[in-house]
């Protein structure tokens, strides 16, 4: 690959042979990189070809967003990986309902406390979990609760967003706001964030 970033941008923005040659080179490079990136996943050539085709369309649509802070091909590969892994996640979760996921997303503090730990640690843990449960119940909107709990159960963000009629960025804001509310609530109840994290297994 001898093209520098400017060459990629110039050729991809032109009409005619230069653009076709750049697209062909980019397609080949992305296919190679995506095959490498997804070597741990079970995908076939048709899947890779489709993902690269979707990626090329996105890249052409976003050329103006490339800031030149990395190699062009690295940037393009990061988009290809998002496209491909997004498609894989969608395939895995397409038949799973949000309601089904949320039905498994409650928790009973008493059942999560480690009964092997010393009594004082059990009592502290139980109190923390009760506070967390109360905060989820009373401080979060239904939409925040849904998004946060579905994410916790492993549902992909694009899928949650689709169920909520939203998109991944808006969903991130929704769950970010939810986390901020829970953090403030825990702090108000006397639980410093860093202390809570410090007690968790690594």
């Amino acid at each position: 690959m001898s093209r520098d970033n400017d060459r990629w941008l110039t050729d991809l923005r032109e009409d005619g042979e230069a653009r076709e040659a750049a697209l062909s080179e980019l397609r080949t490079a992305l296919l190679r990189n995506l095959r490498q990136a997804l070597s741990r996943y079970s995908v076939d050539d048709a899947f890779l070809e489709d993902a690269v085709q979707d990626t090329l369309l996105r890249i052409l649509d976003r050329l103006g967003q490339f800031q030149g802070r990395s190699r062009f091909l690295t940037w393009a590969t990061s988009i290809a990986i998002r496209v491909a892994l997004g498609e894989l996640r969608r395939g895995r979760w397409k038949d799973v309902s949000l309601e089904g996921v949320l039905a498994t997303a409650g928790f009973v503090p008493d059942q999560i406390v480690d009964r092997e730990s010393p009594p004082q640690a059990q009592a502290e843990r139980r109190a923390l979990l009760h506070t967390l449960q109360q905060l989820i119940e009373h401080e979060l909107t239904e939409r925040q609760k849904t998004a946060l709990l579905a994410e916790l159960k492993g549902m992909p963000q694009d899928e949650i967003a689709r169920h909520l009629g939203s998109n991944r960025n808006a969903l991130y804001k929704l769950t970010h706001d939810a986390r901020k509310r829970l953090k403030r609530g825990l702090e108000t109840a006397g639980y410093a964030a860093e202390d809570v994290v410090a007690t968790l297994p690594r």
Partner: protein
Amino acid sequence: MTLSKKEIDSLLRLVGLTRESELNCEQCLALVSEFAERQLAGKSVSESLQHVEHHLSICEECREEYEALRRTLEAVEEQDG
């Protein structure tokens, strides 16, 4: 069935790591290629790239994508010598 201990710990960890201002997934995607190249080269990261690092600690999907990108860059570097 309910949330497991692991899932509750994950929630507590996420809440604990939450900052007032965070990158969203799209903003992370715009910067992650630079972050990956600098990490691979063992270079320090700027303040804006530290936000990428934080986002990757919060967002499992972006982290999965970053790790795939990093593995790819390492393999390509090895192949290209």
